[in-house]
Structures are given as C-alpha cells and as structure tokens.
C-alpha cells in the first residue's frame, strides 16, 4: 500500500512522498527536524490530516483528530510533538493544537468570533501565526502559546544534565 517512488533525475530531488498514490495529498508540512510529514488527504470523502514518519513511511495515529473535518493547513513543531491545524466546528472554523505526547487537543478560539484560514506553528511551539479575515482583508496575527504548551526544542537544545565523567 505504501508507495515511495524514488526520483533519480536530479541529485537534489530525493523522492516523491509516499502514501496511497491513488489519493490526492495537499498542504504538506514538515516537522522542524524533517522526520515527519503532515498532509491533507481525503478519508471517506472528507479532507483529513495524515501524519507519516519519513524514516520508515509508517502512518502515525492521531486519535484526537479523527473528527471535525474538513481539516486544513497542518503545521508541526520541531520534533512533531505538536500538530496545529484548522478544523470545522459546526459552521465555524477553529484552530487547534494537538499534543501527540498526551493526546490532548487545545482549541484556540479567536477573539471577535473570527475564523482562521491558515495557521503556522513556530518550531519550538511558543508562537502560532494565524491568517484571518478582518474587514474584508487578510491579516496575519501572532499568538503566544508559552503559557499553554511546553516547548518542543531540537534534540540537545533543551536543559540536560552533563555527561558522567569516567571513573
């Protein structure tokens, strides 16, 4: 089922992304470390986010994101702990951040009842950028998520204990 097709034409172009090749894939988002890829792909006719490990092509479960389609505009933090995207709640669009470590879903309703169109999560998950409509124009607004989420830093960049000295 999984098809990873290698493209050898250019030294730069490594491969076309895998997946069920008969299904369309849109809105790609790489994790900061480049190991995970999120795309929007139809499932039972509904645009749904899919998360794939690029190391082995395995699809990763997203139990907190099985509902509220159509999904759009996925965005991943550095190690892929967090996945931000736009979901549907009734007639409104709602930005959410899924924490894959504990399967929690953080809804981010916007003041003024505005609907988000696109979102982008900073690699460390401290900030979220949202595209919204405001008085007939597109705006980009930033939210500070540092009170809400633990940071997702590159490996080795966090606080670590020093290595043990050899005896």
């Amino acid at each position, binding site marked *: 089922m999984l098809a990873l097709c290698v493209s050898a034409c*250019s030294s730069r*172009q490594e491969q076309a*992304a895998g997946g069920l090749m008969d299904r*369309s*894939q849109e809105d*790609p988002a790489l994790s900061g470390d*480049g190991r995970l890829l999120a795309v929007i792909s139809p499932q039972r006719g509904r645009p749904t986010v899919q998360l794939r490990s690029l190391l082995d092509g395995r699809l990763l479960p997203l139990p907190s994101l099985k509902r509220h389609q159509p999904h759009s505009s996925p965005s991943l933090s550095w190690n892929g702990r967090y996945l931000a995207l736009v979901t549907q709640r009734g007639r409104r669009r709602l930005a959410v951040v899924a924490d894959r470590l504990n399967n929690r879903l953080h809804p981010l309703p916007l003041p003024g009842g505005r609907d988000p169109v696109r979102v*982008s999560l900073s690699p460390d998950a401290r900030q979220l950028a949202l595209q919204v409509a405001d008085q007939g124009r597109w705006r980009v607004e930033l939210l500070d*998520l540092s009170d*809400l989420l633990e940071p997702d830093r590159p490996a080795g960049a966090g606080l670590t204990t020093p290595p043990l000295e050899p005896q």
Partner: protein
Amino acid sequence: MSRWLGWIATAGVPLLLLGCRTPQPRPLLELNGLLRQSVNSRRAPDLGQRWLVSLGERGGRERVELIDLTRRRPVTLPGLNRADAQPISASVSADGERLAVVQQRDGRTELLLYRRSVAAVQRLPLDPPGVPRSVSLDGSGRRLAVQVSRDGRWQVDLIRLP
C-alpha cells in the same frame, strides 16, 4: 490569630483561583500592530524560530516579506521579488537563511530556493514535471515538501537540498 485567618480568607482565595485559571494563548499586540502596518493585506504565514515569512500586498502587488520577530522589523530580500512575479506560497528555515517560494511568472508556476546570505535565487526543477502549489521547508532548510499537480491530481514531492 483571627487577623491571620482573615488575611488568608481575603488574599488566599483569589490567589487560589488565579492558580486554577486555565492557561490561555495571548495575542502579541505589538507585533500584530507591526504586521498591520505598511500593507493592505497579509496572508500565507510561515514561522521559523524568530522569523515570519508571509505574502504582503501593497499597491495591488503581492511580495514575499520576511520579518525578524526579535528585532521587530522586516528584512530585505534582494533579488527575490520580481515585478513580473506573483508569489503563491513561501516557507522559511528555522534560522531564516533559506526561503522556499512558489511563484507564477511568464505564465508558468515555478519552485524557487532563496539563500539570504548570498542573495541567490535558484530554480528547483520538478521531476516528473508538474505545477507546484504549497511548499514547506524543514528547520534546517535542507529538506523541502511541495504540493504538485500532475495529471489532475495533487501529490507531495520531497526534495533534499545541498
């Protein structure tokens, strides 16, 4: 003793309630004001660590704009925004050095890599050929995912960059 109990009752209860408050996201008001300035509209945001790339429209023309969020000011991108090009999607690496851009020019849609330190634009060919749409760089700027239309179907290509 009763005075201490009174103090706990008056000060302790609000503090307890404050401690139980659900953490909320906070709008970055100063930066949001900056993002409204100097453009009629702004869309397609993508965040690097301290960098925001987006498409800003001014005077009827859209450009790729990179903003240094720490210094709170736009960064020039010499050679990237051609007068005859219409940007569609942009993504920035975590260090702000590399930008991947999809743009329309001369009736065709092309995928570009821009390196800021050398102000160099490099066209990235797609194989097999297709029409690019939405692009995402990883943090290092060495790996790129791009949505491509081929034979009426959307696919995602991965490209490793030197």
